[in-house]
């Protein structure tokens, strides 16, 4: 190939709004996703802060009970369906999977664009309940029957929104599977793929196979509400437990749709900032597949108190513990990757370390909930709320922001202010733990979740948690402002490889040209993290 490094970046080829919202370039679609995701995330955070404010003191602080119930439902729906499920795959997967595989786009660029549009339609449907009809649903994001069949709020619209969003997720999954099978550059065998690609591969299979089940379940709710078909409401001949089974058959595997891509990102950042190969490449790659597989069979652990038979509880609890094993293996391999590295402490590494710490807390509290005796006490308490925020926010959320700091210079070709990023990180980290750790405590004390008001003995931890939410918000604002400043006020330009990374995206220009590579990417000899034989990268 010719050595013209003056190729136009994907930002500069075409201009104007339409060149973005109808673009089939995977990089532009990734950014469309990024901007929309961050917007919805901020809406979700605002709702979260409102909830925390309401819980500052016992009694009413801000809103009525019904409004509070609608807020936590919308918060859950937004954070799950609009933020965390699409987050890493739709943004960083879209942007970097083709580049890491050495190819110029995903297999079906038009489907890719369609999936963003479907996402936007679903998002608008979910948010439309704020303005139209009888107000946003007040059922919790789980839409448990029969309450969801009986309540007068706009459940039908919220449920249909989740249904539509499912298609967006399926399309992305399908696209990635085919891309990974068909479009790897010559020489890039499966076992030479970066671990991020492996993680997306496992995730995509879950998206493809599990999402249809929730689709059907949500349609069943709609049929019951609109047509009066007795499926889940016992007063018209249905079975509420059936709903729970169907819901969690999807929603437990969905937990791995949220977690696996984060594992992938972490497995990229660790080698880069340790400047050495990942410890146990195959163990990490295959444990993703094992988690995806076992994850299908443990949904019942959400229903230990629903009156399931003892045998079912025994089996679901046992299988739940099994899924902890591949997860533990990953953590050990990550920590071992730091061993004898040459560690460069930069903002993305800080997010990585925080991820490992917080994800461990999420995992260990998960074990507490997976054990039958303790779950009988802790099920549906704030312990669960603390647990899943540690996994989804402290884990996946931190990985997402780590990835944003990691790939930022590649995407925009500029660097943010590193000192500021470090300061923001510290505040964010402290705020996060101050916000969620007290929830674990108050849950152990016996405070149920989805509680508008609480007994006086739960006051102190709730107060600390609310103060924590303000610290976290400060960190978040600083972080985003710093990233935005690097972008608008034009932070210093960077070359191809500011972090001295090794995967293929670091061989091309920052930002990449439309075709992704201005010269043929060179694949490292012995696997993706072979720092000893790292191809020399000329600017």
């Amino acid at each position: 190939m010719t050595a013209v490094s003056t190729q136009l970046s994907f930002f500069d080829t075409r201009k104007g709004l339409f060149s973005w919202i109808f673009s089939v370039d995977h990089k532009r679609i990734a950014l469309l996703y990024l901007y929309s995701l961050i917007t919805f995330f901020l809406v979700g955070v605002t709702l979260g802060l409102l909830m925390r404010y309401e819980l500052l003191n016992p009694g009413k602080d801000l809103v009525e009970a019904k409004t509070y119930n609608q807020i936590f439902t919308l918060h859950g729906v937004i954070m799950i369906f609009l933020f965390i499920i699409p987050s890493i795959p739709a943004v960083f997967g879209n942007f970097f999977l083709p580049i890491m595989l050495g190819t110029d786009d995903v297999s079906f660029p038009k489907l890719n664009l369609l999936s963003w549009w479907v996402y936007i339609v679903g998002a608008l449907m979910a948010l439309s309940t704020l303005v139209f009809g009888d107000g946003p649903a007040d059922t919790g994001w789980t839409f448990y029957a029969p309450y969801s069949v009986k309540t007068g709020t706009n459940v039908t619209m919220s449920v249909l929104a989740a249904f539509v969003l499912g298609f967006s997720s399926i399309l992305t999954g399908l696209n990635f599977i085919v891309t990974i099978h068909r479009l790897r550059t010559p020489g890039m065998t499966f076992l030479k793929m970066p671990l991020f690609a492996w993680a997306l591969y496992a995730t995509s299979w879950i998206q493809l196979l599990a999402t249809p089940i929730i689709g059907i379940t949500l349609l069943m709710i709609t049929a019951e509400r609109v047509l009066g078909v007795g499926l889940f409401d016992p007063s018209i001949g249905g079975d509420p437990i059936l709903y729970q089974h169907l819901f969690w058959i999807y929603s437990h595997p969905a937990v791995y749709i949220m977690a696996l891509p984060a594992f992938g990102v972490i497995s990229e950042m660790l080698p880069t900032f340790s400047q050495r190969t990942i410890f146990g490449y195959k163990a990490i790659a295959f444990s993703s597949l094992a988690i995806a597989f076992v994850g299908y069979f443990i949904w019942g652990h959400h229903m230990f108190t629903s009156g399931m038979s003892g045998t079912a509880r025994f089996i679901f609890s046992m299988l739940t513990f099994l899924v902890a094993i591949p997860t533990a293996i990953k953590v050990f391999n990550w920590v071992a990757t730091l061993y004898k590295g040459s560690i460069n402490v930069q903002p993305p590494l800080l997010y990585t370390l925080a991820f490992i710490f917080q994800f461990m807390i999420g995992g260990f509290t998960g074990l507490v909930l997976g054990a039958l005796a303790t779950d009988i006490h802790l099920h549906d308490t704030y312990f669960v709320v603390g647990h899943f925020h540690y996994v989804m926010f402290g884990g996946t959320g931190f990985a997402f922001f780590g990835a944003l700091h990691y790939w930022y210079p590649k995407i925009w070709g500029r660097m943010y202010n590193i000192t500021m990023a470090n300061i923001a990180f510290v505040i964010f980290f402290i705020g996060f733990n101050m916000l969620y750790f007290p929830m674990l405590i108050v849950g152990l004390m016996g405070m149920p979740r989805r509680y508008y008001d609480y007994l006086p003995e739960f006051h102190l931890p709730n107060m600390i948690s609310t103060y924590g939410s303000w610290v976290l918000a400060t960190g978040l604002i600083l972080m985003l402002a710093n990233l935005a400043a690097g972008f608008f006020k034009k932070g210093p330009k960077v070359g191809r490889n500011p972090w001295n990374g090794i995967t293929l995206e670091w061989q091309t220009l920052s930002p990449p040209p439309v075709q992704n590579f201005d010269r043929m990417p060179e694949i490292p000899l012995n696997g993706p993290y072979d720092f000893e034989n790292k191809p020399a990268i000329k600017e």
Partner: protein
Amino acid sequence: MRASASTFAQGVDFSLYVIVGISVFFLIGITIVMLYFVFRYNKKRNPVATNIEGSHKLEVIWTAIPTLLVMVMFYFGWMGYKPLRKAPDGALEVKAYGQMWKFSFEYPDGRITDSLVVPLGKPVKVNLVSRDVLHSFFIPAFRMKEDMVPGKDNFLWFEATEKGRFDILCAEYCGQLHSYMLSSVTVVEDAQYEQWLASTAGTSNEHPGLALLKQNACLTCHSQDGSKIIGPSFKGVFGKTEIVVTDGVEREIVIDEAYISRSIKQPNADVVKGYMKGLMVSYEAVLTDEQIASITDYIKTLQ
């Protein structure tokens, strides 16, 4: 944490200590190792990295150890839980009803109460019944909860080991006033319990209609003083002209005996404008016509 006040609580607390103990040990250990590596192999101290691909021996070790530990955790979790599903023969049986947003209890002798009174050190089996949506019967001090599922029988049992009054909370979200769905269990000496049982179930000079309203949790949603809770207040409602929505069409009606009876039996047939449909369940199978008449009688007095 709160006092542990049932035999079951000891099993729960023990498995909690086992799991949390192991977890905290690993959490702290791994975090310290991680931070030490970041410090020790910082590029200032270690400019050149050593590539280590992995180690089969370590992989085996750190697969085997977690496997063993999680099986230990599972075992204690299971052992702590097992007693919960087998109520001893001869346990005192009480029926607990959950409905938006009130618990009520029915004793074998037919008395109905708002809160539980149980004897110390005797097994008590609570049969859980929901009259509308999901609820969950949760006694934190006893470390146990079990869902109340409409249309499906469920139960839990316990043996209290400490005297006192303990909170009962609803742990499964059940709508607007979920967080106010509270009750309590009072644990007393055997003798005191017998005494309580023997006391005539408080034959007060309360209007029988009011007693029915209380028993059936009507008053959690309908006030007697004109304030709006979830449903329309009972004050002045008899003889009032209201606009109701029937099958999506608004019409004007006058509230009489027939209307009240229909509202109790088919609450969603006519819904007063401005209120939510679907929240009230039918009491057709719960209340007899005489009881409904008695309720209507009482409502007439609220002018």
